[in-house]
């Protein structure tokens, strides 16, 4: 049986010389635990990678899966969610709701070709400033290794032949 893939995608276009890849991470932190922990990391002058931008929400339960998708869609290489430890939610149960959504969303993202390390949920209490540092550094490191987000289903295709280009040009 002939293999069509060699016919369709022999040549991956050469990447031009580019500046070193710096991953971008959008983080959604709940105001009571993880946002406070990030503040604590600040007041304690801990140092961590500058790749994360935090969006504050009242509770991890507010994080709509649409926000995660929107972040990836707009160019984030990773999304980090931070909430209170199980049992510690300021609103009692919001973090459990977050957990349920995240578990299901993770399966969807994986199926859509987004690597597991790009989407992370961490429980970080207001007292755990160092955990913010450790998690962010670790995530950025992993994203650096993964490279920019590219959905794996969109493998590079061979360049079109002139005839095919002509076909693509709409003649009307």
């Amino acid at each position, binding site marked *: 049986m002939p293999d069509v893939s060699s016919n369709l995608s022999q040549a991956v276009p050469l990447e031009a010389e580019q500046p070193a890849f710096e991953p*971008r991470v*959008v983080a959604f932190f709940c*105001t*009571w*635990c993880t*946002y*406070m922990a*990030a*503040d604590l*990391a*600040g*007041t304690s*002058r*801990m*140092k*961590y990678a*500058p790749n994360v*931008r*935090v*969006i*504050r*929400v*009242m*509770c991890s*339960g*507010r*994080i*709509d*899966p*649409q*926000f995660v998708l*929107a*972040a990836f869609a*707009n*160019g*984030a290489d990773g999304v980090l969610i931070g909430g*209170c430890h199980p*049992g*510690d939610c*300021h*609103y*009692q*149960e*919001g973090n459990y*709701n977050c957990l349920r*959504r995240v578990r299901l969303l993770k399966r969807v993202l994986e199926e859509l070709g987004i690597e597991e390390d790009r989407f992370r949920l961490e429980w970080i*209490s*207001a*007292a*755990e400033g160092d955990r913010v*540092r450790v998690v962010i550094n670790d995530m950025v490191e992993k994203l650096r290794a993964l490279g920019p987000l590219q959905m794996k289903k969109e493998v590079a295709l061979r360049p079109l032949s002139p005839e095919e280009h002509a076909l693509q040009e709409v003649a009307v």
Partner: protein
Amino acid sequence: MAESKDIDRNGVQIGVYVCHCGTNIAGTVDVKALTEYAATLPGVTMARNYKYVCSTPGQELIKRDIHELGLNRIVVAACSPCLHEKTFRNVVAEAGLNPYYFQMVNIREHDSWVHTDKRAATEKGKDLIRAAVRRVRLHKPLERKRVSINPAVLIVGGGIAGIHAALTMANAGKHVYLVERDATIGGHMAMFDKTFPTLDCAACILTPKMTAVKSHHNITLWTLSEVTQVDGYVGNYQVTIKHKPRYVIEDACVGCMECIDACVYKQAKVPDEFNMYLGKRKPIYIPFPQAVPQVVVIDRESCIEFKSGKCKKTCVEVCADRKAIDFKQQETTETIEVGTIILATGFFTFDAKRVPYYGYGIYPNVYTGLEVERLINAAGPTNGEVILRDGRKPQRVAIVHCVGSRDENTNRYCSRVCCMYSLKLAHLIKEKTEAEVFNFYIDMRTPGKGFEEFYNRVADEGTHFVRGRVADIYPNPGDGGRLLVCAEDTLMSTVRKIPVDMVVLSTGLEPQADAQDVRRRFHITCSTEGFFLERHPKLAPVNTFTDGVFLAGCCQGPKDIPDTVAQAGAAAAEALALIDIGYIEQEPNTAHVLEEVCSGCKTCIPLCPYQAISFAENKKKAEINEVLCKGCGTCVASCPSGSVQQNLFEDEQIFAEIEGLLAYA
């Protein structure tokens, strides 16, 4: 709140203020570059940087720009919103705009303080400002709601913290419900003999306050009672309280205690909890002579009437017409309404059996500090004599510090009081027995008024101090039951094995065993160690993250009596401050249903932990009670048709923030 101008979104004019915070921000972030960048963003009319935007001139600058340039949205890039969001909202309001036409950007805690690369920190600042500028365009004017505050207060726990807070509040004319789960108030302090470093008698200073609680017309005291449920919100809590049966009608009992004498048990046979099981009591008893209320209690576990139903009930006979004894008493519950709550639920002493190599529970002459406290006490099981279980007077005593504290295997924290109470016990044991006393310590921690002086005094009295953690305690073979205490003396660099008659383990303080249940009931959080978490370790040490719930005493962390009393007073003052204003302004970040488009699918209803969402049968749609809503937004994220929105955190506002963060060139 100043009258607000509603603003047409098309006429958005944004002012961006970048704070230097001295060099705190400007040292790492190029504030000038941020300002120049902000000025290029769509909608931005004015962008400035200033040394301290939160200062009075900084605030005036914003107000002037609002008036002179017609700004109608303000973005301040400075410290954490947790610090100054309120400040700047007020500035915006004072200038005549709605205070919620404001967004704060955290370029200090989340940027300049955590990064060293200036370029990267500046780029991050640009992204954050761009997100805020996009977001603030979509902000809507909001009103804070005022909720009145019920002046009654609930105080949970009748130890010295609860007692002091109760008296403070009651003296200020507020009604106090004091709930204690034991049969008497007094807590741990009632068990102590003397208190360090002044050596005044604990009972002498505590019992007048206990009596004052009982007789105070503003205090409702409930012993043998527990809080089972807390509903509502600051100013308007509904609290359900369970009253366990005492089998004695409190109002009928006069505390004559004739029933105790008359009990069919001629001898006291039941191990006595108050005396750390070193003494005995009868099934009908009073916990200790000064107990408040002065009312007996029946222990159904040991009472023959409860066990067999065939007791002669001599207690009932002797009670006669007073008819105070009621074997049929049932558990009851009642609900009260209060505006504020003070938690003073105290601590749990570390279980020394968790350090098996110290032999507690194995060797009879190994005691805990609290047990010795009872032995020393004149009202204790030995009438104040420090004697061993076999009746001997100890001649050599070892006191082991840091049992269950500063230990990787148990608790890493210092329990703060053990060094001082170990010194106190050393002094008292020596005084009572003239024994030779050895204190084994890691570090001697005496940071308090008169503490170091007390240490010197005890040292001068001849107590031996060995610096070293005790590694093992075991019987000294052929030495008549004496124990060997082994430790490396780190000052002498030798291993010492000291034979003693008695070992006192200075056990540390732990959170109450049910602290996790309690904090869930009151919607507060715990620190890693399990003590209740204060809102801010320095600036809000008695507040919690739940408005209207305050902390006093060791439930927040180990502390001594003076600190406990000071904290109890502070908690009472915080509660009084709330009550005095009479109302509280609530953040308007509540959720609401877009009624015309809600399909009534009910997905949101069970997700609300506050039962704020209900199904309106007439409209077949969900409804949110704004007063009950606390603004978590869980229902918003779960609404499958986007028909629930949260003020300040609307979907479109958050999308704008996401897109803004990532819309870099």
